[in-house]
């Protein structure tokens, strides 16, 4: 075995080993050690995966656990064991997860002082699950990491033990547990038909079978689970509650990496397993595209109407996930490349923004932009990170996200482009509005956001500001890297996601600078801050209508677990309808 083949399982086993060791010794470890170990393990995982990404440029790196290679059974189409496979895209995403975790560990320094290593044990298991999710090439193994990711996330959400955190965690657990049952059932259906779990072998079987309700049903169940994780309308309702109430260092991971992994998993499955099924590709191009657009728009509007900073960011995450789903459903090579780049750019930016929210929760004891009005003075580093992040999300023509948007829009229709641009502008303007209120004392009468739910809470104070600000600024700086440098790698990554031996793709060098999103962001931002109390009758009527509209939308996101589960069933029904037509 070559070095990279040996290192492939280490990327998962290292965090697992560190976590179990820390748990076994939790009672006797000095309190500082787990924090240091966790940072180094996350960095090591990042380094290993970067190495794997580099090595896989010469062809995919594979590792068969227990030595059960596909020919161990001496029967074609029967794969006895489980394989990991690093292609450039998967390995790069795993490395990205390692990076986000190390940033989050630095940010969380001092947050969980009193607890016995439990936080770090859970986080390391979480990291291992995400890396495994990226690297596996076995459907049931994918389910295992998906579920491990979910369970670690449940536990971490409830960790602060606050009222909201507990209720958010309850909703989160119920909806996502249901999603994992769906995924297990879907995996079972696909196994019953194809007789294998291995992606490549399953892909061949799917292409042989052709149109078949069992395969489509299996895909729908698995996709519904992944879309629940990726918070796509109407499966998205849990996210805003969970991300808003989880501890900030955990929210960084949730919004920055976990949710977009759901979409990456879906993209990988569509490319490697279901590319030969016309039914499935029809669903992807049709229903998923519509769902993506709807998600982007609804969540964008919801983000604009929030006052609780973390909830605002959570809705912005949903909105951007909708945009990513449109890229996924477009299915062209440039759009897929755009999707991969967007995951990175969005994750870095959103991670930084959640860190800013966490900083405010720690230093100013609130995350409500109206309560915090003018309280951010003197915190120049978080202000810088927040304004930078808001501009990036709002379409600043610099950095990874802009490059990604350029790639995605090449294969988007004009109405789709209009919707995604509007969604981008709404989320960007919402964040900038909050930043202006908190840090610059800019005012304007609050609009619909005044009615949004909020919570009085805080996070552990007395943590060094620079340890919280540095990772946020570093992530924003990384998101500002010019995308041109990454294009050759991205070309190889996109091509290999579909076919491990494909030649690298030549991606179009950065297109024209598109200033429309930024202009729209600025306009919405100005609109929010120039708002004055409605005095005249027509103005009042407009305000009332606006409030009624937003109230209806807020009512949809009721926070009641029964509602959320009902909407999940509706989502499944949508899939059933779309595949029957």
């Amino acid at each position, binding site marked *: 075995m070559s070095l990279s083949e040996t290192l492939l399982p280490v990327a998962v086993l290292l965090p697992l080993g560190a976590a179990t060791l820390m748990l076994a010794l939790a009672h006797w470890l000095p309190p500082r050690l787990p924090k240091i170990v966790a940072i180094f393990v996350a960095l090591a995982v990042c380094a290993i995966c970067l190495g794997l990404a580099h090595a896989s440029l010469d062809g995919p790196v594979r590792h068969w656990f227990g030595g059960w290679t596909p020919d161990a059974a001496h029967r074609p189409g029967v794969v006895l064991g489980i394989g990991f496979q690093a292609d450039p895209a998967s390995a790069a995403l795993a490395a990205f997860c390692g990076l986000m975790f190390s940033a989050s560990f630095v940010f969380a320094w001092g947050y969980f002082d009193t607890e016995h290593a439990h936080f770090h044990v859970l986080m390391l298991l979480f990291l291992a699950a995400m890396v495994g999710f990226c690297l596996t090439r076995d459907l*049931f193994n994918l389910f295992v990491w998906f*579920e491990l990711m979910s*369970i670690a996330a*449940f*536990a971490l959400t*409830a960790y602060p*033990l*606050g*009222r*909201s955190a*507990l*209720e*958010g*965690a*309850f*909703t989160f*657990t*119920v909806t996502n*547990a*249901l999603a994992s*049952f769906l995924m*297990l*059932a879907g995996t*079972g*259906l696909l*196994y*019953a038909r194809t007789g294998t779990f291995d992606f490549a072998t399953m892909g061949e079987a799917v292409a042989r079978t052709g149109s078949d309700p069992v395969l489509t049903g299996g895909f729908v169940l698995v996709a519904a689970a992944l879309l629940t994780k990726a918070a796509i309308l109407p499966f998205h309702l849990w996210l805003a*509650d969970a991300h*808003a*109430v989880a501890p900030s260092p955990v929210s960084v991971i949730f919004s920055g990496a976990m949710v977009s992994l759901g979409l990456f998993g879906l993209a990988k499955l569509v490319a490697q397993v279901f590319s030969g099924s016309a039914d499935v590709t029809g669903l992807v191009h049709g229903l998923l595209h519509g769902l993506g657009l709807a998600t982007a728009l609804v969540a964008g509007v919801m983000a604009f109407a929030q*006052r*609780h900073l973390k*909830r605002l960011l959570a809705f912005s995450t949903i909105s951007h996930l909708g945009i990513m789903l449109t890229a996924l459903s477009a299915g062209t090579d440039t759009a897929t490349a755009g999707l991969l780049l967007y995951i990175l750019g969005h994750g870095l930016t959103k991670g930084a923004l959640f860190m800013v929210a966490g900083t405010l929760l720690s230093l100013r004891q609130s995350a409500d932009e*109206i*309560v915090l009005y003018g309280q951010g003075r003197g915190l120049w580093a978080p202000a810088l990170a927040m304004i930078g992040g808001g501009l990036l999300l709002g379409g600043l023509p610099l950095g990874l996200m802009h490059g990604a948007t350029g790639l995605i829009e090449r294969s988007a229709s004009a109405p789709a482009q209009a919707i995604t641009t509007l969604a981008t502008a709404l989320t960007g303007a919402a964040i900038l509005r909050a930043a202006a209120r908190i840090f610059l004392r800019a005012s304007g009468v609050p609009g619909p956001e*005044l*009615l*949004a*739910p*909020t*919570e009085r809470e805080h996070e552990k104070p007395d943590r060094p500001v620079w340890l919280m600000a540095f990772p946020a600024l570093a992530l924003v700086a990384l998101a500002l890297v010019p995308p041109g440098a990454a294009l050759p790698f991205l070309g190889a990554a996109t091509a290999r996601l579909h076919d491990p031996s494909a030649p690298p793709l030549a991606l179009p060098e950065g297109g024209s600078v598109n200033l429309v999103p930024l202009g729209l962001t600025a306009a919405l931002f100005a609109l929010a801050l120039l708002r004055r109390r409605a005095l005249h009758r027509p103005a009042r009527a407009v305000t009332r209508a606006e409030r009624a509209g937003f109230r209806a939308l807020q009512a949809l996101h*009721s*926070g*009641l*677990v*029964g509602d959320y*589960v*009902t909407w999940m*069933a509706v989502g499944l029904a949508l899939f059933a309808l779309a595949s029957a037509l």
Partner: protein
Amino acid sequence: MSTLSPGALPISALPWLVAAWLFAVGLYGIVTSRHCVHLVGCLTVCQSATYVLLLGLGYVREAGPPVFYDHPPGTPAVDPVVQALVLTDIVVGAAVTALLLAIAIQVQRRRGTLDPQALRPLRPPPPSAE
């Protein structure tokens, strides 16, 4: 689909329909539940649907268990792979149930109620903010 006429429903589809039934019933329970602990119980019903489905998929008529202690290897046996998948999942399912129950206990302590209709993570702002 020509096989969709109601009279021609083959009995061999029974396990799949039972699985779908269990899942639907569980969903109904979750949606109408007025007590979080009851809701968790309904969730376990949904989960049992996946077990029935998977084990049904591996069943082979007139075959023995995939344990060759009494029968020599080579005697017909059912699919061991789906059994392995379900086996571990049952244990994990119990642990997730425990996690949910722990959350429910704490919700009761913090809120004094366990009616899912009354639990929503973030509350509308206090009127004083106007």
